[in-house]
């Protein structure tokens, strides 16, 4: 991010100090005053926004350790003691463990599938000239700007007719299909930047196209695969609309769906502390992963928009 600044070569100007001893170097006093005011002001604003981002999250964590009575009585009070049993109830009674497992299965399957199929299509589109190449490419990237909900109405029946409704593998196939537009767009651009000479050399040495792809090109494309992989992982892990429409069986629910259903059913069960524990449980792994892989995550998520 930061460009390391070597001390700027002393600009020649009339206002520059002649000797370091008596006149302080740097900007003239007026501008320094302005800079300081601005500095305090900008720090103030930045701290306020940081506070606004963090507070709701801390509030959720705090609430997950409180009992129901104090959640409603005094939303901002600290818990009287740490009610870890909320977490236990959420994990077992509220089926959070099942939701986690379902999510891991769906996202695991679709992430691998997206990367394999996406890179295959992108490689061919980036490196081979054939009639229809442009058409297929635009067909893929067109999917990025179309409202998905429009397709979901008939898709529900397509999936149903294939017997894939409410199945994990059905959801995986749909996730892959809807992740392809961005993946193909991103990886096509990436494969175009890779040098052609290595692949040609492999080819001359008698490697087939397929072998060249898997043994030479894929390893070379690793940075791109990581970026787009993180992008897809977060998108698929956090997906809400697709499972809401296509995955209505209570046993197959993924995390986001499960939590929403839990919130709805709490209306009569009244276990709010358990629900908060569930929410925090779902939040923490993603936040922790983000903090650890901060640079890669930011790169992965902003990569598309910067192109």
């Amino acid at each position, binding site marked *: 991010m930061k460009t390391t600044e070597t001390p700027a070569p002393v600009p020649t100007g009339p206002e520059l100090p002649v000797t370091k001893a008596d006149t302080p170097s740097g900007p003239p006093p007026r501008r320094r005053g302005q800079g300081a005011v601005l500095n305090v002001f900008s720090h103030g604003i930045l701290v306020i926004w940081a506070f606004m981002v963090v507070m709701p999250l801390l509030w959720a964590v705090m609430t997950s350790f409180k009992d129901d009575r104090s959640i409603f009585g005094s939303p901002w009070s600290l818990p009287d003691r740490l009610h870890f049993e909320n977490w236990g109830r959420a994990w077992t009674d509220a089926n959070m463990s099942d939701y986690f497992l379902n999510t891991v299965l769906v996202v695991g399957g679709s992430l691998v599938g997206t990367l394999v199929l996406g890179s295959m299509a992108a490689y061919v589109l980036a490196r081979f000239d054939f009639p229809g190449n442009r058409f297929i490419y635009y067909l893929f990237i067109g999917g990025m700007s179309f409202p998905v909900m429009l397709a*979901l109405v008939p898709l529900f029946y397509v999936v149903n007719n294939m017997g894939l409704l409410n199945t994990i593998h059905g959801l995986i196939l749909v996730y892959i299909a*809807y992740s392809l537009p961005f993946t193909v767009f991103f990886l096509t651009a990436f494969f175009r930047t890779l040098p052609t000479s290595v692949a040609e050399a492999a080819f001359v040495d008698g490697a087939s196209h397929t072998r060249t792809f898997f043994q030479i090109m894929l390893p070379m494309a690793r940075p791109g695969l990581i970026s787009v992989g993180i992008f897809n992982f977060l998108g698929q892990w956090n997906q809400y609309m697709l499972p809401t429409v296509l995955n209505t069986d209570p046993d197959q629910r993924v995390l986001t769906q499960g939590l929403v259903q839990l919130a709805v059913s709490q209306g009569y069960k009244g276990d709010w502390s358990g629900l908060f524990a569930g929410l925090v449980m779902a939040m923490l792994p993603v936040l922790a992963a983000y903090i650890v892989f*901060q640079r890669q995550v930011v790169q992965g998520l902003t990569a598309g928009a910067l192109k």
Partner: protein
Amino acid sequence: MRHGKYRFVVGFLTLPLGLYALFVVWPFLQSIYYSFTDWTGLSPEFKMVGLDNYRRMLDDGIFWKSLRHSLLFAVVLPLVTISLALFLAFMINAGGRRRRGGPAVSGVRGSSFYKIVYFFPQVLSIAIVSLLFAFAYNPDSGAVNSILRAVGLGGVQPLWLGDPDLALWAVMAVLVWSTVGFFVVLFSAGMASIPADLYEAALLDGAGRATTFFRITLPLLWDTVQSGWVYMGILALGAESFAVVQIMTTGPGGPDYSTTVLVLYVYQKAFRDGQAAYATTIGVALLVVTLAFAAAVMRLGRRERLEY
């Protein structure tokens, strides 16, 4: 690299393209076709009804209401989010105290800390964020109203999501909260690549910070701002607005349809009311709005690309 080329191309494209065609392209085309039928979605029989659905849509008060809300989302959300993000990003990158012998414009201390924190909501599911804020907005026991009580505004206790005039704005605030960080990081990266001597020159010419921002930073960042604008608008018309409205507001759709947006209306017509054909008609309207929005932003925002 000739032999076996076509076989290889076909072999590699069949699976991804087939999956994409079956689950994405084909349903899209079907959708447009269904909008001219009376298909309920419950039984496989249907017949063509011409433009009946479209006529019905034009007379449907709820459709117009949700269209208005969706347009509001598409205009207000990018405007607020991107302005706030530009402001914060500029503060991060140019708000620093000028150091002795340092560059003319420098970032505040702890800039990477701010960027890390601001990005938090971006990695969370919009569903989780929506649930969290649905509680925070609870009029009696929610975090927001109890803050108001704590600072002595006990008389001001809005119903938030229960108030037809406020619900939509309360929902939009959540989307702003959750997306600003992404754009701060995005714009920061862009700002960091603007050469420091441009600022140097502007400051020597006596330009203030505001002038520097509008005359140097913004024009050089314009491409990023523009694509961010389209990206945010598409989110605000589509998946994100579906999740927040469906999860947060009562109904869902708010008291007196005050928060119903097009994408939610499509969902309800298709999967709640058994009017699949009519749902696809509204979906086509949503498609038109989305494409028109993207085209308008690209057109209005067209400028000469600046090289630096």
